[in-house]
């Protein structure tokens, strides 16, 4: 797997150690610790997982095994404006697939990727429960309802500035 | 916040709090309480319906009658405004015309509390206000 090598700063390490300590350095708290770390760093690079592994005394391979099991965890940094398209059934039957295709076309990236300028990243997510607004697109915290393929450009334009 | 120490405490607390949502409970099951519907279209308001509406909401509560006062649109009896429809559980609805504060007091005391009929009843030439 292609890994982006990053260097953690002393204070980053201290932060992770603190998070682990908050959960009593208990191996059973691994998922909670990873949630907090992802909240802190936006993603879970290898270097972060290593510190977690050391402090919780969980084998690094096991930490990675957990990170790659859950779709919520990511090892890639997200774009400045993460775009998520709900692919729940309700959104699917109301055309989410076309919306996804249109985003892929407009941004020139595939699902799970980030644009070269780091501005947008594209992902699908499971039902957000706003089925009344299907198909639903989230850009950052903002929700767009009843999105059609031809409305994609308009949404992107809001963030182009 | 003080701890709720026993079931009795909890029940006492509940009875104190219940008034807060009494209105919602009543709205949920309107047929189980006395409903007073005040016709409040423009013409009704002009003839003092708003005053009547407020009187009912306040007095019903004061006199400890579990009731529901709502405002409705034009009832179609413009000639007798302000009009008030009263629904007592188990009885047919009755519409009173030319209701003012004094009349409202009588409606509560005589009709609602004691079941006596009053003057000013408009004959039922309708099925139901909202249908």
């Amino acid at each position, binding site marked *: 797997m292609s890994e982006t090598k990053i260097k953690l*700063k002393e204070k980053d*390490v201290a932060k992770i150690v603190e998070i682990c300590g908050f959960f009593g350095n208990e191996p059973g708290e691994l998922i909670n610790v990873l949630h907090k770390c992802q909240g802190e760093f936006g993603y879970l690079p290898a270097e972060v997982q290593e510190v977690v592994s050391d402090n919780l005394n969980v*084998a690094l*391979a*096991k930490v*990675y*095994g957990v990170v*790659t*099991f859950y*779709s919520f965890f990511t090892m890639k940094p997200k774009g400045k404006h993460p775009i998520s398209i709900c692919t729940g059934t309700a959104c699917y039957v109301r055309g989410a697939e076309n919306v996804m295709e249109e985003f892929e076309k407009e941004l020139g990236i595939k699902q799970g990727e980030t644009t070269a300028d780091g501005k947008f990243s594209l992902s699908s997510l499971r039902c957000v429960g706003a089925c009344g607004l299907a198909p639903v697109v989230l850009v950052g915290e903002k929700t767009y309802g009843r999105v059609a393929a031809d409305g994609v450009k308009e949404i992107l334009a809001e963030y182009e500035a | 916040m003080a701890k709720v120490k026993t079931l009795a405490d909890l029940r006492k607390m509940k009875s104190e709090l219940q008034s807060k949502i009494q209105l919602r409970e009543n709205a949920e099951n309107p047929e189980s309480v006395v409903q007073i519907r005040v016709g409040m279209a423009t013409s009704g308001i002009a003839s003092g319906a708003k005053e009547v509406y407020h009187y009912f909401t306040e007095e019903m509560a004061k006199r400890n009658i579990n009731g529901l006062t709502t405002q409705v649109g034009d009832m179609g009896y413009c000639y007798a405004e302000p009009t008030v429809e009263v629904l007592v559980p188990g009885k047919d609805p009755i519409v009173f015309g030319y209701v003012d504060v004094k009349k409202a007091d009588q409606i509560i005391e005589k009709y609602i509390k004691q079941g006596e009929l009053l003057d000013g009843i408009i004959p039922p030439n309708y099925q139901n206000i909202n249908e």
Partner: protein
Amino acid sequence: MIKLTIDNKVVEVEKGTTIFHAAKKLNIEIPILCYMNLEHLDIENKPGGCRICVVEVEGRRNLAPSCSTKADDGMVVRTNTMRVINARRTVMEFILSDHPKECLTCSKSGHCDLQDMAQKLGVREIPNETTCEMSSYRLDTSPSIIRNLDKCIMCRRCETMCNEVQTVGALSAINRGFEAAVGTAFEMNLEASTCTYCGQCVAVCPTAALTEVDHTPQVIRAIADPTKTVVVQTAPAVRAALGEEFGMDAGTLVTGEMVTALRGLGFDHVFDTDFAADLTIMEEGTELLGRLNAHLAGDKDVKLPILTSCCPGWVNFFETQFPDMKDIPSTARSPQQMFGPIAKTYFANKLGIKREDMVVVSIMPCLAKKYEAQRDEFKVDGNPDVDFSISTRELAHLIKQANMDLTTLEKSEFDQPMGESTGAGVIFGATGGVIEAAARTAYEVHTGKTLEKVDLKQLRGMEGIRAGSVDFDGLEVKIGIAHGLGNARKLLNDIREGKSHFHAIEIMACPGGCIGGGGQPLHHGDSEILQKRAAALYREDAGKPIRKSHENPAIKELYETFLGEPCGELSHELLHTHYFDRKRKRDIED
């Protein structure tokens, strides 16, 4: 006891018995794939993942995995209905649809559980074979082990070995769904991971997802090279297991036949690692006594216990996971790495050839030895002390390739001088053997008396962690023994916490010691096989005229004519080493 019916036959079993084991009692062999029972380690790998062992249980909606479903009283089980057979075959088709179809050239062909099972279930084609997407992982080659995850069938046996038995934690299930496999953190190379190359994962892998690096072609090439003198050394555990590859009973000693075969393969000098084991005892034993005496004399700088260091898997383990304790183990090299430099100096001198013209090959029950042989500190100007290390399994291949059948070969003797060994060297191959051999010599050196009862049976056995003591004429030397790295970890933690009361501890990475090494013929978790191999080594020891390392005449001569004294200057240069902190380093920006 409970009674149940399997295929119309009634069987009575203890409560808690699985359907699989109950059927076995009736001689009904339900096919299994992922299941693995390591009774001697009290570990069962039964993820219930392959679903090959499913059976029909009356009253249940779905088929039940017999490996992990407990038998109930009155249960009615059918193992061979149309429904079961179709399900097994379809599941096998699924598994094969995601498995490379290169059996003809696969190194595991003929020893592959998956291949056997596909044949047993009669799979003849894979539906829509050409359009099936296959998972694709990159091949990872390390000095000892090759990982080809495309062949992983998620039986999780390796994961169990690496984590539950060895507590190494190099392997884990990674990813999800169709992409799931057992791999390393960040899919890094094994070399970068905490892997110790103990090879226990390779030993249990049902397919060729995990195999040893094959050095036989290089060995054949060296033998064929007329300019090279090729010297071979064979580890003690090899002779107790090699026969199994030729259909002989476990525990059959084939020392003589093996020597004949090695000569037949064209090795110029057939020597014995046991010789180097005796040498190890001289060095390690002397170091032990030195540390013991200094400690008893009150020298606070000298730490006890002293730990053995002849197992390279174990060395890798403490270098990666306990680097803070790297000054505790003995500095003596493993027998393989003592043999190499002696062969390339002492023996090469005798032959009058240059070290570059000598090739040293070792036959080992071990995969970590492959890594050890190529460590930089064991090279002189880039020339390794041991050129190639091949496993017992690879040797069997070589012998078969040379059209020899071990069962029909005459016995013959090792060459001299490095083929001379004692019983102490032989028992190196079993757990407890190294420390027993060391104690035999240390006792006599320390007390100046003759050890009358040579068999120190208090140190033998198969329990994972053992304690025993030897009376050194009034001084009670407390000895700890651990085999399997999980057990080693426990003793190391005790030492770290200051709770250890041992003077000396022997540690072997593999359960059972070298006889259960990662390069040995597959024992499929049958602990009886391990016991028989150990017994064979103790038998050979008992039959040896000399049973104490310091009495080995060839060793004596080596010290007299070449090395001087144990732990002397030359010994330090050739026979001792130092350890490295190989914990994964964190790259921190200031």
